[in-house]
């Protein structure tokens, strides 16, 4: 033996259409972005104050072949250079998921390529594999429009949910509080900015739940903000939106950071990562960075364009699934409530 076997490079096409971005990307060997194309619909949904599923689906049909072609063009590759097609299977808006899935199935069939259905949140977590190698055990804080979870990974492709929100997701809370403050959709980034520039903060409660729980709850905090505004209105007083934004953000960030830190200690992890749209939050990033710097555990968060929905993250997670032998057939369907299941032990 002792023979050196060169492993062939692995090129994966990822496709994502679970919400309001139509995206395609080609990733090499699970960690190197060759091309990454995102067509965002956010401008179209703004007038409705949120994502309208039917409108999202209509845009996906308009964009899907264009973004796949663009991903191939930017990579200077042809379908026959690819090893597999990976597509978001769920969770997400079912009508939106179906577009990416049926395009992926037709593309895989026409070009005789293997197909792999990928969990959207696995994608958000694997966005980090595109930045630096993931080291296990790893703790992932997933904070997005639909999810707030602490996920422990003892190995590549192996997930244990150790905590999750019992009501609103963090991003959802941001968007709802933004509405209270009359900030147009999507409100998360704007609240972040107001909080950043504020010189004071309203004192809102921190919701810790049971003393040893890793679960989250943000609906009480949201109600506290609504009541604060309501009481001010009744007294005919103006609220200071910056102080409200900062008070709200301080509460969210403190709870997220403290629970992530406690979990990282308990499970003795080698790496902590943040994933999902809310990990773009400046306040949260800074707090997590400072906490883990002090703790001496490496903490990473992907650059902005890999935090929000994209297909490179789907291709990255899909690469790991593909190597583990996972395959989908042409009956692959959209699963709005898909659970995150490990593909490795």
């Amino acid at each position, binding site marked *: 033996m002792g023979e050196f076997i060169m492993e062939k490079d692995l090129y994966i096409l990822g496709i994502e259409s679970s919400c309001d971005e139509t995206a395609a990307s080609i990733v090499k060997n699970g960690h190197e972005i060759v091309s990454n194309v995102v067509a965002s619909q956010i401008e179209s949904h703004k*007038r*409705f104050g949120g994502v*309208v599923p*039917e*409108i999202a*689906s*209509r845009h996906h*049909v*308009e964009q*899907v*072949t*264009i973004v*796949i*072609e663009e991903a191939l063009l930017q990579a200077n590759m042809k*379908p026959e250079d690819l090893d597999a097609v990976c597509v978001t299977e769920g969770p997400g808006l079912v*009508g939106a998921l*179906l*577009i990416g*899935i*049926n*395009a992926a*199935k*037709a*593309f895989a*069939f*026409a*070009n005789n390529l293997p197909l792999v259905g990928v969990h959207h949140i696995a994608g958000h977590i694997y966005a980090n594999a595109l930045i630096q190698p993931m080291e296990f055990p790893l703790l992932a804080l997933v904070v997005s429009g639909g999810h707030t979870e602490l996920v422990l990974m003892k190995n590549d492709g192996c997930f244990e949910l150790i905590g999750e929100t019992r009501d609103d997701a963090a991003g959802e809370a941001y968007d709802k509080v933004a509405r209270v403050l009359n900030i147009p959709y999507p409100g998360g980034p704007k609240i972040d900015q107001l909080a950043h520039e504020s010189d004071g903060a309203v004192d809102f409660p921190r919701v810790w739940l049971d003393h040893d729980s890793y679960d989250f709850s943000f609906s009480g905090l949201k109600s506290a903000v609504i009541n604060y505004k309501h009481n001010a209105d009744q007294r005919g007083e103006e609220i200071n939106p910056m102080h409200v934004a900062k008070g709200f953000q301080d509460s969210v960030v403190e709870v997220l950071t403290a629970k992530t830190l406690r979990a990282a200690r308990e499970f003795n992890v080698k790496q902590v990562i943040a994933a999902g749209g809310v990990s773009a939050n400046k306040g949260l990033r800074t707090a997590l960075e400072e906490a883990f710097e002090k703790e001496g555990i490496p903490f990473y968060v992907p650059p902005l364009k890999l935090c929000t929905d994209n297909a490179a993250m789907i291709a990255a997670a899909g690469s790991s699934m593909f190597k583990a032998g996972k395959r989908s*057939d*042409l*009956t*692959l*369907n*959209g699963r709005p409530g898909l659970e995150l299941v490990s593909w490795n032990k």
Partner: protein
Amino acid sequence: MIWLGIDTANSPLAVAIVKDGQILTAEVTNIKVNHSAGVMPAIEHIFKKVSISPKEIDAIAVSQGPGSYTGVRIGVTIAKTLSWTLQKPLVGVSSLQVLAANAAMFQGIICSLIDARRQNVYAAAYDSTMGLAPIVEDGHYSMLGLLEQLKEIGKPVLFVGHDVDNFWGLIQQELGNSAIRAPYALDLPSAAQLIHLAEQQELPSIDATHTFVPKYCRLAEAEANWLKEQKGKQ
């Protein structure tokens, strides 16, 4: 010339492969299951059955709507993707014309319709003596409004489509003896008819595939409400 035809605009799933004016295979199923899972396996199955590989086809025909939003989108998404990646032209045909074509041997007015719920339909009427020229354009109509239009034409009308039975009592009440019910054997879309109609159109360029979109015949509800609001503000 080899054609692939796909109609998933409504509950039936119809696929066919036609070669030089001959049907090699044509399948239709109407069991009200989710098209998302079933369409690609059905397409793979007919290719296997006739021992043709996808790269061998020359053109694709798809039912472009109106109908179930999701159903139309699944067919169009698959057809667009195949057309683009195989670099074969894509032709869209009205889902209502596909249904009416089943009854084209009838000499006179043919009305095809699809239930759009709450006593509304997607419908059209064609004159078969004039090569299926549209008399009532593809659209979203209240059932009573549609019947008013048909009454005014003052001629016998043949009704075809798997949803006609949902309205047959009302149709007879409004049109009396002028209403003729097509035999049920003609009620499901045929992907071979779809290809036959597509063959009568000029083949579009490959570049047109990217901009190919369904014909919904209706604004999304949120958009319609938003437009109403804007008008109210003026």
